[in-house]
């Protein structure tokens, strides 16, 4: 990489206006929400008290009966969800293997790298981007008002760098801090390419990631292609569990969604967009904390299809500490809930876009109902063991879930040609890792419901690189 080339600096004006939510009295809105929830809960209790004498069971039997029915429903939904995802993911992989378009389509691509205080990793990221097997692309680094030496490090990288197949133009935009969404919008606006690749500043792309993803744009209906995100910094308990989660929880679900061309979230570390689709959707918005989910929903709402390319890989640094992990999941959960709320019209009215309605209900279920069910089931078994002495129930519950996760993990590891050792983590995946995540999701949901303010924050990066 040739550093310190001759550069030209110019001032540009960026449009900072974006669609705003209707201004309303938030305090009143949340008070109204709490009031109505209270009224509904009270009504429910009154109905139970009123109908209780009419039943043949006593209170404790009714309680047990209700819990058993709830558990059976939970088990049914759990199994249905698993098998539906597994079957659809399997069908997608079959379809992908036989019908994926061949190469030979090399449109000009702009790779957008938003960076904020990434002095440790920005050079490595750009270096990895120059190793890409693609003949026709440029790199645009967007420095989002970093307070460390990111600007100086990035300026040294500007120039015509020697790529693997061609010379690659590296440009830099220095803008005041405004968040990832605004940084990406600046990059998209500057780009002259038909296809833009949005990634994270700390992510590294695999050499064939662009070539394999771009070929799907041959289909004019495809508005975006989601890549495959993998954990780079493995070897610790939480990062290994996240590595398993990415392949078992996220990628498998994305494969299943891709079977019907309705991927619901294009991941931040690698997402390719047709510029026209982004323009039609009104660019990234910063009114939610999950700008990826929001843009994806807007693109789907405009009738574009979204595909998942499993071999287009981006390696990202996952949070290694529990605190960092909770921070990330808190933001994801609240962001997804904000996106769902923002697009609630699409959720309620399937005549606008049936695909979006389906996607939104799936997101609602995964973000709200699923964690609540998991927590309730675990609490039930704890109470059953401590109060009623049915301690073996929790063992059978764990054994059933662990078996299900083991089979799924084996399938996913085989499909993705991943490390086999990750399969072992499936034994503690559901009862330990997912329980922590679900509790965080539940807490975040309550906070979102109450309208407690939140900030973006930034995960600490250690500067891990993929060798």
């Amino acid at each position: 990489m040739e550093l310190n080339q001759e550069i030209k600096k110019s001032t540009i004006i960026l449009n900072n206006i974006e669609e705003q939510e209707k201004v309303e009295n938030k305090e009143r809105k949340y008070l109204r929400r709490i009031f109505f929830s209270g009224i509904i809960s009270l009504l429910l209790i009154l109905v139970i008290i009123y109908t209780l004498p009419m039943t043949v069971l006593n209170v404790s039997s009714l309680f047990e009966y209700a819990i058993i029915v709830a558990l059976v429903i939970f088990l049914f939904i759990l199994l249905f969800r698993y098998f539906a995802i597994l079957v659809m993911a399997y069908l997608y992989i079959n379809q992908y293997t036989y019908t994926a378009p061949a190469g030979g389509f090399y449109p000009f691509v702009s790779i957008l790298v938003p960076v904020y205080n990434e002095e440790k990793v920005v050079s490595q990221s750009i270096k990895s981007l120059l190793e890409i097997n693609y003949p026709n692309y440029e790199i645009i680094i967007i420095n989002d008002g970093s307070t460390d030496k990111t600007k100086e490090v990035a300026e040294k990288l500007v120039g015509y760098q020697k790529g693997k197949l061609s010379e690659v133009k590296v440009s830099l935009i220095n803008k005041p801090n405004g968040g990832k969404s605004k940084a990406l919008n600046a990059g998209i606006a500057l780009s002259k390419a038909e296809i833009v690749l949005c990634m994270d500043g700390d992510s590294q792309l695999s050499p064939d990631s662009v070539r394999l993803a771009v070929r799907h744009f041959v289909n004019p209906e495809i508005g975006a292609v989601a890549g495959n995100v993998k954990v780079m910094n493995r070897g610790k308990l939480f990062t290994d569990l996240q590595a398993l989660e990415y392949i078992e929880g996220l990628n498998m679900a994305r494969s299943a969604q891709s079977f019907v061309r309705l991927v619901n979230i294009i991941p931040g570390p690698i997402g390719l967009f047709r510029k026209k689709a982004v323009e039609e959707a009104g660019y990234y918005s910063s009114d939610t904390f999950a700008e990826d989910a929001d843009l994806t929903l807007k693109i789907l709402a405009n009738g574009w299809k979204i595909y998942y390319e499993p071999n287009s890989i981006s390696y990202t640094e996952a949070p290694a500490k529990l605190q960092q992990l909770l921070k990330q999941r808190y933001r994801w959960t609240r962001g997804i809930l904000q996106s769902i709320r923002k697009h609630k019209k699409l959720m309620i009215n399937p005549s606008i876009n049936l695909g979006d309605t389906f996607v939104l209900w799936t997101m609602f279920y995964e973000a709200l109902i699923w964690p609540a069910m998991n927590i309730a089931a675990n609490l039930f078994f704890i109470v059953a063991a401590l109060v009623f002495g049915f301690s073996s129930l929790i063992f059978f519950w764990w054994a059933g879930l662990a078996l299900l996760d083991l089979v799924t993990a084996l399938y996913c590891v085989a499909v993705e040609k991943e490390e086999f050792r990750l399969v072992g983590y499936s034994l503690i995946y559901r009862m330990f890792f997912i329980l922590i995540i679900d509790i965080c999701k539940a807490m975040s949901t309550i906070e979102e419901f109450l309208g407690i303010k939140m900030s973006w924050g930034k995960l600490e990066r250690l500067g891990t690189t993929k060798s």
Partner: protein
Amino acid sequence: MELIPILSTIILVATISTFLLAIGAYVLYKVREQKGQAASVLQPSEIKAELVTPAVSATSKVEKERIIPQPIYAEPQPVPAYQRQPIILEQEQMPTQHTKFTPKPQPYSAYRTTFATPVEQQRSRQGQSYQSMSSEENQFRDSKFLKYTTEGYVPAKEDKDAGALKWR
């Protein structure tokens, strides 16, 4: 002692501990977040940014040259199912006098919609252009049927005129 009660106890303790750990970590996270909470600032409608690009030099010429031979995306037209795939043709291989093509000079990023027959696809892959074809080759292209002889593929008409074989 039986195995199931021991495992049950281990899992019960682990689950309760996980619950406590998750709630504790969450509370701790919230406490830490509260300290670093910053007030939101109104964003202006336009912001100034600095664009840093490579200075115009000899290298930019290299880039221009690199951009010219871009592949052109050919949109698939309604054709039989077995042919229904997008066709990519190199710009310099585009036929100029063929009725189905109307190539115009355009920027590299504009991908045109064209139609190409399988024979044309084959030619484009082999790196041959229609301009460079001889009349014999054109006859070869226009022939509906080909016959394989010791001299390779020959148009069926030519073979028929030879009078060696007549089909009834």
